[in-house]
């Protein structure tokens, strides 16, 4: 029988557009130090390390985790790295959970870190075109990289296909309002890249088109930063909890799914994010959740794009497909509404330090569960071309 696994410590570094002052070595150690402090454990008590680092080129080295293993004090212990695009952090938590649940280790460090904006385009004298080029190396190298594949245009394909099927949904006013709301929520997150960048719906609607149909203020921002969790199996977690006085936040459900990367009959259904659908249903089943609309209170959702946030909420079964605008129109995610969605500001306002992002989301969900006395949260990661990969976690307190 598998063991229960819980979160007993968590920390993030500030997410910033650029950390001239820190390498990824220091960012990784910083988050780890703080997570150990939060759990009131020594790094010597942590038996295994799971690294979520998305892109070798961002760190400018292959197997980038090799250099941080020792400087975290994890030498001579188990260490492995997960890289699954945008879903890297969520998949890393999933992997750590599996090892602890199986009894291989009592404790684990989950560390997500990314240093993206050292990439620089000397032709336009700006970072962003080179950052998105670097992500562009993640596309299919035979058929899509050569013709300008990007993360944005591949997610836009899914969003536009959804809008083909549901022409009345994802109204510009609604996507803009969601972005504006996230910008208000981020104000209480001191670690966020855009803590004080509050925008109005009109500003979002007036921001420039980047990739049709996405506007600048509807897209996540690339960040540098790290996030860490200390996980433990049940007996150890409860002992540490007695020591810290902080309740254990249990990981009660996990689900993952990766779709086909080619499109058409018997392949990817472009108007759906089936990876979100399958992963969430598998997580609900594991957690014993029959009706997510009655159980889920907090959603820390990987909002690469506002439109995708809406579709993902529909795929999770939290709002009807084709009526995702009910999130705003019917107040489902407005303040005081049924769901607390991305209280940290999400990746659009807190920032997207890719390998660290979903770990940051789990950090935020844990904080909210503990601070608000709530019971159940859904944490989500999406990634790869056309929203191909998803991993979901259910956290309960």
């Amino acid at each position: 029988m598998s063991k229960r696994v819980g979160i007993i410590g968590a920390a993030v570094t500030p997410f910033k557009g650029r950390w001239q002052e820190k390498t990824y070595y220091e960012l990784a150690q910083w988050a780890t130090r703080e997570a150990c402090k939060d759990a009131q454990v020594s790094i010597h008590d942590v038996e295994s390390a799971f690294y979520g680092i998305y892109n070798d080129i961002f760190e400018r080295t292959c197997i980038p985790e090799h250099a941080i293993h020792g400087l975290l004090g994890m030498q001579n212990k188990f260490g492995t790295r997960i890289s699954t695009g945008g879903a890297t952090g969520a998949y890393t938590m999933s992997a750590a959970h599996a090892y602890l649940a199986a009894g291989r280790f009592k404790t684990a460090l989950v560390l997500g870190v990314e240093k993206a904006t050292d990439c620089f385009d000397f032709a336009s004298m700006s970072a962003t075109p080179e950052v998105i080029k670097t992500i562009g190396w993640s596309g299919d190298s035979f058929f899509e990289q050569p013709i300008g594949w990007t993360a944005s245009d591949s997610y836009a394909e899914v969003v536009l296909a959804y809008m083909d099927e549901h022409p009345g949904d994802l109204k510009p006013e609604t996507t803009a309002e969601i972005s504006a709301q996230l910008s208000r929520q981020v104000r209480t997150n001191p670690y966020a890249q855009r803590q004080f960048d509050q925008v109005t719906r009109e500003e979002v609607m007036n921001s420039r088109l980047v990739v049709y149909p996405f506007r600048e203020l509807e897209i996540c921002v690339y960040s540098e930063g790290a996030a860490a969790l200390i996980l433990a199996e049940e007996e150890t977690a409860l002992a540490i909890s007695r020591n810290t006085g902080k309740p254990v936040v249990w990981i009660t459900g996990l689900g993952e799914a990766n779709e086909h990367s080619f499109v058409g009959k018997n392949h990817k259904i472009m108007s759906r994010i089936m990876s979100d659908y399958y992963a969430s249903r598998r997580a609900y089943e594991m957690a014993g959740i029959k009706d997510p609309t009655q159980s889920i209170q907090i959603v820390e959702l990987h909002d690469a794009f506002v439109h995708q946030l809406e579709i993902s909420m529909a795929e999770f079964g939290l709002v009807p497909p084709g009526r995702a605008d009910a999130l705003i129109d019917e107040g489902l995610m407005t303040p005081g509404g049924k769901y607390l969605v991305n209280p940290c500001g999400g990746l659009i306002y807190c920032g997207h330090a890719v390998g660290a992002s979903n770990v940051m989301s789990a950090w935020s969900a844990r904080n909210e569960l503990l601070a608000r006395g709530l019971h159940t949260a859904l944490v989500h990661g999406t990634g790869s071309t056309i929203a191909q990969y998803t991993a979901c976690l259910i956290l309960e307190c």
Partner: protein
Amino acid sequence: MKTGTGKVIPYEYIPDEGSEIETVDGRQYLIANDAMYTFFKRTKGELSPFFLALRDEKRLLGCKCVECGLVRVPPFLTHCPDCNFASTKLLEVEQVGILNSTAPITYFATSLFQHMAPYGRGRVIFRGADTALSVNLYTTTGILVPGILNKGTEVKLIFRTNRIGEMTDVFCVPTSELSRDQVEKRGLEESEIDWESPVEPNVLDASAEDTSVYREALKEIKSIVEEMNRNDRARKDIAGWRRDIAVKARGGQFALIIDERGIRIEEKELSAPDFIMVSQDLRVLLDGLAYRGAITDSVINKRLWISKNPEFTTIFKLDRMARSVARSKKD
């Protein structure tokens, strides 16, 4: 060896060796110019027939499962996983198809594709195929804007004249922009299509009122530009950038200069500008600079004309400066 027209890494992308210091909170940090690069002699293996057919025969190939009959284009596998890995056979499909879904349009491209923007990339189900091929999509009628490439739009495969066995050898345009003969021809090349060339719009004669509107707008633009120069965040948006832009509108013209001194207005005619902006109403540019609507969108909506599409890069910087000034006011 079949060669393309340029280098694998264009020279303009390659920085000089060197390093610099950035100061944060009074402390100095070292920043070095650097690169990761790896060259390949890339094998195309089982995909070779597909790319050779594009390159040498101007044919489009797919593969058909001998069990289920599903036709996959491109032929990205040799055995069908849906049929316990039954074998597939190559076959040719037609060069006309429909868009599987509405295609995105990239205005802000990666550093590798800025010269190509704006461009569409979408999935086409060609006649005879069950799966979609990812291709570049263009219009022959100017800047690509939403509404041209919708779900179900019929498109035609077009071949580049100089082909090297890559997906860049082909692209698609709507069949509605071609003659019947062009649509029916197999192996239609780009040189056989009529492309609309960019023509600088005529600025209409200005009435006294128009001139007054122009002078008032220019006065406001000067004020905004001065504010941008005083704003550190906005200055960063154009760090290292140089452009001489001729701005023409009903009522007059001026030069918008971006260089190491910042951004400024000079009321003169440029003899050799990097590019030209034209709008009948200077308030269109004013609104963008004042953060009352993106300049990018004014270009897309054809309220503002630019002479070179790659200068979207400069337009983005101007939009960015407007937002930077607005953000600073909130801090």
